[in-house]
């Protein structure tokens, strides 16, 4: 990247990783104040199957509503981060999420996909400015294809055989 030394690029990569870790932690602990602070005022979230959320307030309102009565676990993996300039970057992260019912602790969803994201350095801090979750596949309680449901099914079939 022109205008960026090797060391500056490594530091920026670590800062963006930390930003991502904080985001995943903030959503799973429902720390909406922290979640808000990680996004630029002009941030846009547009996840598959959900409305486009313009700005952190709309995003948090939408996210809170979708996680009402639920516990989530978001994990992110092996990012592909590229720099457009010393203050603009794009990232693609492998992701996996689990959503549980808060009361019954039942697993409702086990999903997989890629987060496509953009970041900008604003006043010395990297922030999210764009995020889109693109699913590869989703297992749900409703569809009956969660691993736990299948394991039972598989064992029963084995016992009968």
């Amino acid at each position, binding site marked *: 990247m022109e205008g960026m030394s090797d060391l500056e690029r490594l530091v920026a990569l670590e800062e963006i990783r930390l930003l991502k870790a904080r985001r995943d932690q903030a959503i799973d602990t429902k720390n909406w104040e922290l979640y808000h602070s990680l996004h630029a005022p002009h941030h846009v979230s547009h996840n598959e199957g959900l409305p486009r959320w313009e700005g952190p307030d709309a995003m948090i309102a939408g996210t809170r509503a979708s996680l009402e009565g639920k516990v989530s676990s978001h994990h992110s993996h092996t990012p592909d981060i590229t720099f457009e300039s010393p203050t603009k970057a794009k990232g693609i992260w492998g992701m996996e999420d689990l959503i549980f019912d808060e009361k019954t602790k039942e697993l409702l969803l086990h999903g997989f996909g890629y987060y496509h994201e953009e970041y900008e350095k604003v006043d010395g801090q990297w922030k999210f400015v764009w995020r889109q979750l693109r699913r590869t596949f989703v*297992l749900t309680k409703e569809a009956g294809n969660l691993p736990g449901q299948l394991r039972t099914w598989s064992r029963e079939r084995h016992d009968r055989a």
Partner: protein
Amino acid sequence: MTELERMIALKDIFRLKGRRDRALNTKDWEIYIALHEPENISGNEGEKPRRGARENAEGVARILEGILTVHHGHTPEIVFESPTAVRRVWGMEDLLLDEKSRRLLLHGFGFYHERYEKRDGQWLFCWRQLRRMLVFDYR
């Protein structure tokens, strides 16, 4: 190698791995081939190792016809053999799903043992062996 050079190699190989997992999961075989040396050797337990980047991609594409996958790589160990040759071991998890019935076919865990070489300034895969720890087979 300076410390900075080591850090850059770590980051570049980390990105190479992420791109390989994504190319596999999105079935982008041209990218998949481009991330491997032409004479790459790739092996899964119970199978004959596949020689050649293109031959490997074609073999994997055949096995995955009608199947969606998730491959995740975690917490790699690293050994520098030289400034242009590196070995890494990655914790891995994979899921295979039937595209039509949406049935989970396999949920597996293990370690990818991999070797990379830097050629013309680019890190590329030159060897990979998957060693399984545990597989739930639902087929």
